[in-house]
């Protein structure tokens, strides 16, 4: 019992740390969230566009559903922040939508370590969104370690694509 209460304390401390790290750059300095720069790949939008709150709508409105990381890192860089700001704007406009944030790694780490590293990455994204006002209870994090790559090669370009956190809006 005491173990889990300590865990909870650490959870709170961890969030505070993450927020502290993210607040190095004042929110006012952030570029405005780009809107409508991504074309949805789910077919023609038609006269009314994707249904509000849908995955297609999210992909159309947010700059991207994916941020990328450096090797063995879970730092959120300025490019990531711009993408996450656009995701946060959409999530705040669609407050009933719950999302899953997936953390992934490239293949150059051992399996168990990469599970933990992917969890760090997913939490880094979730903590940033939380700091931008998205209720933490709307976000579920899951790490896939190196088990679900998108690029199949064993080369720097593939590894860069696989070190990622993906914000997944449910279909429908």
């Amino acid at each position, binding site marked *: 019992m005491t173990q889990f209460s300590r865990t909870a304390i650490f959870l709170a401390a961890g969030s505070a740390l993450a927020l502290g790290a993210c607040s190095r750059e004042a929110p006012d300095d952030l570029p405005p969230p780009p809107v409508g720069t991504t074309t949805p790949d789910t077919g023609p939008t038609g006269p009314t566009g994707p249904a509000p709150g849908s995955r297609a709508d999210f992909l159309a409105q947010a700059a991207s559903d994916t941020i990328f990381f450096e090797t063995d890192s879970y730092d959120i860089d300025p490019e990531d922040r711009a993408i996450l700001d656009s995701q946060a704007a959409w999530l705040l406009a669609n407050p009933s939508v719950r999302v899953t944030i997936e953390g992934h790694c490239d293949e150059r780490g*051992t399996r168990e370590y990469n599970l933990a590293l992917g969890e760090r990455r997913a939490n880094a994204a979730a903590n940033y969104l939380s700091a931008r006002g998205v209720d933490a209870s709307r976000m579920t994090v899951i790490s896939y370690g190196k088990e679900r790559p998108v690029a199949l090669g064993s080369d720097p370009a593939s590894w860069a694509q696989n070190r990622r956190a993906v914000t997944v809006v449910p279909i429908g």
Partner: protein
Amino acid sequence: MAISLPTISTLRRFALGLCLAMLGSAAVAQEAGISGPIEGDVIGGISNPTAIAVPDMPTPRAVDTPAGNTADLGRQVARVIEDNLRNSGFFNPVERQFLRDVDMPQVTAPDYPAWSQVGAQNLVQGYVQAGSNGRLTVGCYLYDVFAQAPLERAGYEVDYADWRRAAHRCADMVYARLTGEGAYFDSRIVYVAESGPKDNRVRRIAVMDTDGANHRFLTNGQSIVLTPRFAPDGRTITYMSYLNDEPRVYIYDVESGRQRLLVNAPYMTFAPRYSPDSRYVVFSMAVNGNSDIYRVAVSGGQPVRLTNTPGIDTSASYSPDGRRIVFESDRSGGQQLYVMNADGSNQRRISFGGGRYATPEWSPRGNLIAFTRLGGGFRIGVMRPDGSGERILTNSWQDEGPSWAPNGRVIHFFRTPRGNALPTLWSVDVTGRMIRRLPTPVGASDPSWSPLRN
């Protein structure tokens, strides 16, 4: 599943050539579930393996059994023994074209000059007999051909379906007697069977005998499964599953086939391993980007936290006396190996070489820790528990996840090739000289060796 040895007097009666009552059993077709051995290649090997002859084993009376006719079983048992000995790297079996037929009287009175003539230093003979009790008896006799002397003998009584286990136990007797090492052939391997492309891979928990026979899948592939480990008592297997998209550690009961959640927590649990007495599991839990090591009873209950540092603490493995735990942590920057007492006290770093160190597993002998070393590629290595005497045993692009054989002499690991190809299982001995691929029906990773079966 326990095997009772025939009494010495039974073997003596055999030595006198007295074949006692054998009741014929109804002819039954060989069970489809019994699969044959899978061939593998030994790469490298020791410089001077022992030449050993394993002729077909005669039967006092050819009888049909649920596992086949005893005359055929005599041939198959000899081949299983021969394959085990060859694959250990310590033995160079005499080629089959030079093997002679052995009749029942010769089992206990070998033709030493003839075996010497084909170059055999040692000789394994035996017999296969269908018993009146619905079980199979395999007699196993080891001889020193040069000294013209018997070295050891044993008898194994098994259910027909377990005929391969009698062969494994005979090979274990020969291996242990001639190498001075502990036995390990009569054991199993649990691992992750992998199939399909890298971005949509299907993973299933699978078990097989150490030689690849009796292969079966324990999970159906609908959820990702990772890092299975056999309990030291062989009764359960712990592993991680993404069932319901919640990556958690489970306990699988080998006999009933049922699985249950180990710890009910809203966080990812992973990297499980048993304590030597099979009563506890150590595992990692990830809470908001921080992974620490916990211990919990196999039956469940409240976990006890063992590490408490910011960073990733994972891949915990008990020493065989249960008093210490080796694990990896990136608390100093990159992954390095640490040892602590079983209650989490006295945590100290033991690896200091270049690169990173990961996935330690403590040898069942206690004298070595196997690990994955990262730097350029992944390689398997061993070091003493104080961090001294490091030796790298393999050299490939990605060798990962060492698991010790019950005798602390052989290590299994998995090798991942570049690109989209499937990983494969390999074994290497602690000298690094004998490396061998373990054939599996599909791709394979995360091998874990069972204890010796008894």
